[in-house]
């Protein structure tokens, strides 16, 4: 379903992604684990047509995101690291707008919105403005929206960041359920080892733009002789703290936090 070969992305001197290759099978849940600045988000951005790779090749459901961006985009749904809802619109309007953008026929759109909002326990709040939603509700709405056009692949970029354990738990239950019932392939990144271990079928650990190991959680533990996935992660990536330079997006993120509280 996803095929990546020798993918490279450089920003000036910095090699954000340095020749990674991996495959994700249809119906699989695949997790990308890595410290800050390892290249997780950059990889997602290249797969989802937001960044052009410096070199290497990718295929999404047989389509090349670089040469066939419009076709490729209709095959995936995405939940970004930063919020991407229009908070001045209602939950229903956000869904409806997404349906229009993805050319979902009006009749199907209405039914599908109702199904998804009901599934994510948001149907009763469909007429409320998104600005009145909690962090967990917004995330649920974003996932519901990402699934509206029945994509084959769902990208989740640190979807549980900043959520409480209850919301995180509930969110992953939903994702697993959708994976089992609709067979949607899931590609996720996260910082939480327990989430990756519980949810993902296979895990790749990425550091400094390289994939340092990939496999099932038990096989990663076996490879490193560690007791837990966290132990395996630290064994593979070392325990130095990564001091990323704050880029423009980080500065804006800080400002956003200031304005919201």
């Amino acid at each position: 379903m996803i095929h990546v070969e020798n993918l490279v992305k450089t920003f000036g001197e910095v090699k954000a992604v340095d020749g990674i290759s991996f495959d994700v099978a249809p119906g699989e849940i695949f997790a990308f684990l890595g410290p800050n600045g390892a290249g997780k988000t950059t990889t997602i951005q290249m797969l989802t047509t937001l960044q052009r790779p410096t070199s290497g090749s990718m295929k999404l459901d047989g389509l090349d995101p670089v040469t066939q961006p419009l076709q490729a985009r209709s095959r995936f749904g995405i939940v970004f690291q930063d919020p991407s809802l229009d908070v001045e619109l209602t939950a229903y309007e956000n869904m409806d707008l997404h349906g229009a953008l993805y050319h979902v026929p009006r009749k199907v759109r209405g039914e599908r919105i109702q199904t998804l909002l009901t599934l994510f326990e948001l149907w009763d709040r469909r007429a409320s403005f998104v600005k009145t939603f909690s962090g967990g509700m917004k995330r649920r709405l974003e996932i519901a929206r990402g699934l509206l056009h029945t994509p084959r692949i769902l990208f989740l970029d640190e979807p549980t960041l900043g959520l409480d354990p209850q919301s995180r738990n509930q969110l992953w239950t939903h994702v697993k359920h959708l994976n089992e019932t609709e067979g949607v392939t899931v590609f996720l990144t996260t910082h939480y080892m327990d989430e990756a271990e519980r949810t993902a079928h296979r895990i790749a650990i990425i550091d400094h733009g390289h994939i340092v190991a990939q496999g099932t959680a038990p096989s990663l533990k076996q490879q490193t002789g560690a007791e837990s996935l966290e132990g395996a992660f630290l064994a593979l990536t070392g325990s130095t703290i990564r001091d990323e330079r704050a880029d423009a997006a980080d500065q804006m993120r800080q400002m956003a936090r200031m304005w919201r509280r």
Partner: protein
Amino acid sequence: MTVVYYLWLREVKRYLRSRPQIIGSIAQPLLYLLVLGFGLGPVFAQSGQGSYLQFIAPGVVGMAILFTSIFSGIGLLWDRQFGFLKETLVAPVPRLQIMLGRTLGGATVASIQGTLILIVCMIAGFRPYSIAAVPLAFVFMLLVGLVFAGLGTAIGSTLKDMQGFQLIMNFLVMPIFFLSGALFPLNNLPTALTLATRADPLSYGIDGLRGALIGLTQFGMIMNLSVLVVVASGFLVLGAWAFSRIQI
């Protein structure tokens, strides 16, 4: 076309729902209108130029449109990181349609804002010389909105962070406003100032508004219309080009 319409509608809905923001954005033009309009009125009348309130009202309308439309464009910077824009960038829709919907929405909102200010001006005592000319004023409002929504989109697509915003405000938006003849007549100025005012697209917008509302024009209505149409087209193309190059 559905996509353009939906995105246009989104901008208009957002505007109509943000009552506090609408009221807030009336305050600044109102301050100019009342303080300058009545404060400088006597001096203006003594120099034989007639009523300053009549003169400045079209300028204040133009000012409101300038600010609203250029900010809607620059707001893109925020929208693409934390807002809904990123969602549209991964949708299977050509970027041009997204840019058009958003920019036309911005221009529409700016025109509504301009109309609102015009009504406020009339409450304060402003009188258009003929009701028949008011539709022409709307044409100019929309054109000014398009010019600066296009420019704002170009800027918002290129800016990297919020620091650039202050720079744009002080070195671009304020000069555009002050050099446009919104506050003073553009005749008998020093040569350097004359050249600067002629290079400012807002001058033609304000002059057009004045022509339509009080029957007083410096450049002639044909000239005003042609300059605005050309500049609006140019800025829209520039905005579309910059927008198509956004990488997140």
